[in-house]
Structure formats: structure tokens, C-alpha cells
């Protein structure tokens, strides 16, 4: 062992953002924040690559599910909805990817970091709470976004689908979906004690979304009153926004309702995470 200079830095760090330097201070802080996110995301990516189960869930599950879906929705009641089987499968594929890749992978990731006391250790440093959650999410979010891009490209190139009608709505839907999945994964981690039990605690949102958010059976094919209720589910606005964005056809009122529902769920999740998220194991 050898020790090197560790002199104090009494003059740095204090009284930085005085006077006209506020903008520069904010810029510096933003740059520092990005640097911290990048470091954390890089470490998480390394961990993802080293975890076979997580890699399988992230890379193969979505493909398997889309293929499975293709074979089951042949009998879906599509008359009067204006959707073809391809339309349904491909547009449902995007929220499916978000759930399988982001939600299902992040719950065990947050749980194991918490149980290994990694979250607590990270919180002793300069990282902000949101940076810790976001940094851990970045690698799987990147994988999910890449898969969404592949779906859109494959739709146009191989399946004779039109390019997205309103790319802005499509992107907005995907981004809202990402935010929702990250936050609900953090919220689900609260009630998950081990990485194994994540397979169970993830089921409610997974099932409800697959069955009720119009992914297998479009909500347009349901009785109006039932559809109105189901549109309140967390993933329903994401499915709607993706369809409006890719296939077109969303009335301004419908688009607004979807945006409002998605934002409301995001706010609820932010509240839940801030209120209940645990950064260390229960004793």
C-alpha cells in the first residue's frame, strides 16, 4: 500500500453560483449530471451483458411474443376497426417491447441493486435520486428503443405497411411509455423482496396491459362503455398514441385524452416512487 497526496480542497466547491454565473453554474451542473448518468449506465450495461436471464428477456422475449401474437390474433374481431392483422400485431409490438424489455428487466435490476446495498452506496455520493433510477434504466431503454425502431423499419420494408403517419405522436407515445415503464418498475420494486419474486409482482400490470389495453383485442372492437373504462389503464394511452402515430386516424379529442391519461399515470407513478421507494433492504 502506498498513500498519495490527499490534501483538502477548502477553497473549491463553496460559493460557486454567485452573481451572474448562475447560467454557467447550471450548464456545469447539467454536464456533471450527464457524466454521472453515463458512468452509471455504462456499469449497468456491463451488468446486463453479464446476466444471461436479463439478456434473454431483453433480446429474445419480444421477438417470441410478437411471433406468438401473430399466430393468435388471426381470430381477433377486427371488422369495423379499420385494422389489419399486421397493423394490430406491429402496433401492439411497440408497447409489448416496452413492457417486456423495460418493465420486466428493471424490476429485478432495482431489487437486486437495493438488496446488494448498491442503491444505498450510490446515494452516499453526488448522484441525485432520479439519476440513480434513470442510470440503471438507460441500457434497457436503449435496447427497447432500438427494437421499436426495428419494428417500424420492418413494417415498412417487409410487411408493406405505411411509414408512420404522425411520427411526432408515435415518438411521444413511445417516450411516455418508456417513462411509465421505468416509474412503474420502480414502484413495483417496492413490493418485491427478491429478484425471483419479481416474476410474480410483475404479473398484474403485465396481464392487465396485455388483456385490457387493446394489444390483443383492439378497444375499438369492444362495447363503448367497456372501452372507455379500459382506456384508463396505464398502457392503453401508449397503445392508442402509437396507433394514431403509426396508422393515423386519431381525432384531436382522442389524442388529447390519451396524452392526458398517460401524463396522469406518469404523475401518479412519480408520486408513488417519491413516497414509497426504498433505497435499502428491510431489516
Amino acid at each position, binding site marked *: *500500500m*502506498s*498513500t*498519495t*497526496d*490527499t*490534501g*483538502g*480542497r*477548502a477553497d*473549491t*466547491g*463553496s460559493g460557486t453560483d454567485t452573481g451572474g454565473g448562475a447560467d454557467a453554474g447550471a450548464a456545469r*451542473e447539467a454536464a*456533471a449530471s450527464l*457524466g*454521472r448518468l*453515463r*458512468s*452509471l449506465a*455504462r*456499469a449497468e450495461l*456491463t*451488468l446486463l451483458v*453479464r*446476466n444471461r436471464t436479463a439478456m434473454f428477456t431483453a433480446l429474445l422475449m419480444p421477438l417470441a411474443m410478437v411471433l406468438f401474437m401473430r399466430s393468435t390474433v388471426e381470430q381477433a374481431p377486427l371488422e369495423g376497426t379499420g385494422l389489419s392483422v399486421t397493423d394490430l400485431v406491429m402496433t401492439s409490438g411497440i408497447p409489448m417491447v416496452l413492457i417486456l424489455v423495460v418493465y420486466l428487466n428493471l424490476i429485478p435490476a432495482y431489487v437486486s*441493486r437495493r438488496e*446488494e*446495498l*448498491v*442503491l*444505498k*452506496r*450510490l*446515494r*452516499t*455520493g*453526488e*448522484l*441525485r435520486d432520479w439519476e440513480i433510477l434513470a442510470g440503471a434504466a438507460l441500457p434497457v431503454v436503449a435496447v427497447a428503443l432500438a427494437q421499436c425502431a426495428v419494428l417500424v423499419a420492418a413494417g415498412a420494408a417487409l410487411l408493406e405497411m405505411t411509414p408512420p403517419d404522425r411520427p411526432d405522436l408515435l415518438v411521444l407515445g413511445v417516450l411516455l411509455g418508456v417513462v411509465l415503464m421505468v416509474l412503474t418498475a420502480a414502484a413495483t420494486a417496492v413490493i418485491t423482496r427478491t429478484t425471483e419474486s419479481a416474476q410474480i409482482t410483475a404479473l398484474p400490470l403485465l396481464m392487465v396491459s396485455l388483456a385490457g389495453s387493446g394489444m390483443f383485442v383492439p378497444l375499438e372492437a369492444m362495447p363503448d362503455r367497456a372501452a372507455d373504462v379500459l382506456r384508463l389503464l396505464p398502457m392503453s394511452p401508449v397503445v392508442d398514441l402509437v396507433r394514431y402515430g403509426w396508422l393515423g386516424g386519431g381525432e384531436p379529442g382522442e389524442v388529447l385524452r390519451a396524452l392526458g391519461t398517460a401524463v396522469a399515470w406518469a404523475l401518479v407513478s412519480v408520486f408513488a416512487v417519491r413516497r414509497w421507494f426504498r433505497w435499502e433492504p*428491510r*431489516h
Partner: protein
Amino acid sequence: MNTGEQVIEVSGLRRRYGPAKGDGGFEAVRGISFSVARGELFALLGTNGAGKTSTVELLEGMAEPSGGRVRVLGHDPYRERARVRPRIGVMLQEGGFPSDLTVAETARMWAGCTSGARRTSEALEAVGLAPRADVRVKQLSGGERRRLDLAMALLGRPEVLFLDEPTTGLDAEGRRETWRLVRELRKGGTTVVLTTHYLEEAEELADRLAIMRAGRIVVSGTPAEVTASRPSRIRFTLPEGVPAARLPLSLRAAEHGRRVEIRTGRLQESLTELLLWARREEVALAGLDARSASLEEAFLEIAHGGGPEAAEDEDTARAAKAGAR
């Protein structure tokens, strides 16, 4: 080293787990006050459950106090986290680093999250982990993990370093190496707050220390002051037929069978009196033993010896803490 500037100021500090009112909660820190000057090494001693870690976490800004005030480098460590964190280093009681990352990857991650970080190789070198850079954290020994944790705490060249039981799990050699490192840091001007239950460690390193019991500071001062405040002890065995009642009244003697123990604040005087008495009375004092209080004795007496009321207090406290978390 001591420039008189108070780097840490704590007054009336309290920390409560569980509900704020009623019996459901538990108060782990019950109104403590102390300060630490720049460049000083301050040790918090206490048995498990005395409130050391709960206190240190408040200083680190990990939790908000339920009462009282704490300032680190002039700021509230919880509310002004962004101002304080870049200037402090923290080593938790149990390190938390992902088990599937290597030592070097862990250091790189932590360096990227630390402003003004030194080179990671330099930090690993300092704790002797450089040869283990490519080993996964899960394959490290307990002692190596503690050293990795210490290296990460040092990465930002902190002005104030918090070490929560830094040598627990280390072998004798590792402990000495860590002590050497801490002493060098202190020489370089770093202020250190250390918790430990090794008395030797506090005696070896601390400029000042405080002994906690059941959430309160029972005694504090330099190691010499703390031991000086405790009575010295004289012990011997009286021969058959000589009752302790014959001893001079000025010696406050306690009998355990024929074994006698005298506690005194003035060892030399009491001992002289005892020996003169023994010569006069022609009494042989078998197994005569006279000693000043050591830090260890002071600690054991303070930490455990507070009478049945305090011990009970501590037990219920621990149980409540386990339930409330």
C-alpha cells in the same frame, strides 16, 4: 493541524424510526451534541445498537434528523446535499457494489459520479487493490471489499471522511494498513469521523472520541481525558480472618468473597494508604493488582455498566428498531 474551524457541528440531534408519536416508533439518537474541528479525527464508540451508525448517517445527509441541527462544512448535509457531497467521502458499514463488476469497473463507475476524482489506479494503489483490478467484486474477500469501499470513499479527495467501522472483517495486518492510511490522510489535513467497536482502534487513531449508549453521548473527550474520568482499581485478596471492615474507612472497598476491589480517583494516595495499613497490621495482600483505567475499561463500564435500567432500555430499543424499519 487544528485551525479551530469547526467542520462538523451537531446540537441536540435526534433520529426517530417509525411513527413520530406513540409507542410504535423508536428513537435511535436522543439529543446529542458535539463538534469536530478541521483536521481532527473524531471517533464514535458504542456497542451495537448504541446509535453510532444512525448518527453518522445523519452527518452524511442520508436521512433527515427528527430533531436538532447538524452542519457539515457549514451546510445542512441533507437539504444542501449537492453542496456537501462533493467535499465528503463516505464508507458505509456494509459496502454496496454490484457483485458482477470488476474492481476496475467499479472504480471507473464511481469516478464518473465523483467531481474532481483522482485517477482510479492511484486510489486502488493506495489501498493495495491494484493487483486485483480485474477481479469481480463477488470474488473479493471481506477485507478486500472493505478496502475497495475505502478506495471509493477517497476517490474525490474528500475534506471530510466518514468511516463506519472501516476495519470490521479485516485481519490484523489489513487493520494496521488501514490505520496507516487513515493516519496519513489525517496528516494531509483530512477531517475524519470514525465509528468503531475496537477500542484499540480509537486509542490508536482518535484525537477525540465520544462513547454512546442508547442514543446518547455518555462521555467525550481525548482518549486521555476519557480514561482519566474513570476510577483506577486496586484489587487483592485478604487472608482468612481479616475482614474487609478492618480496612481504613477512607478506602472505598467492595468485597467479593475474600477478594476486595477498591475504586479510586487518586491511585497513588489510595495505594500508599493501603500498603501502609498492610505493613502496620502485618497483613499480606495476595494477588495485589493496581491499575489506572484503560480506554477499554472505561468503555466497558460506560457501554454496559449503566445499571439494569439502561441495559433494558437498550434491549427494547433494539427490538423496536428492528420492528420499525
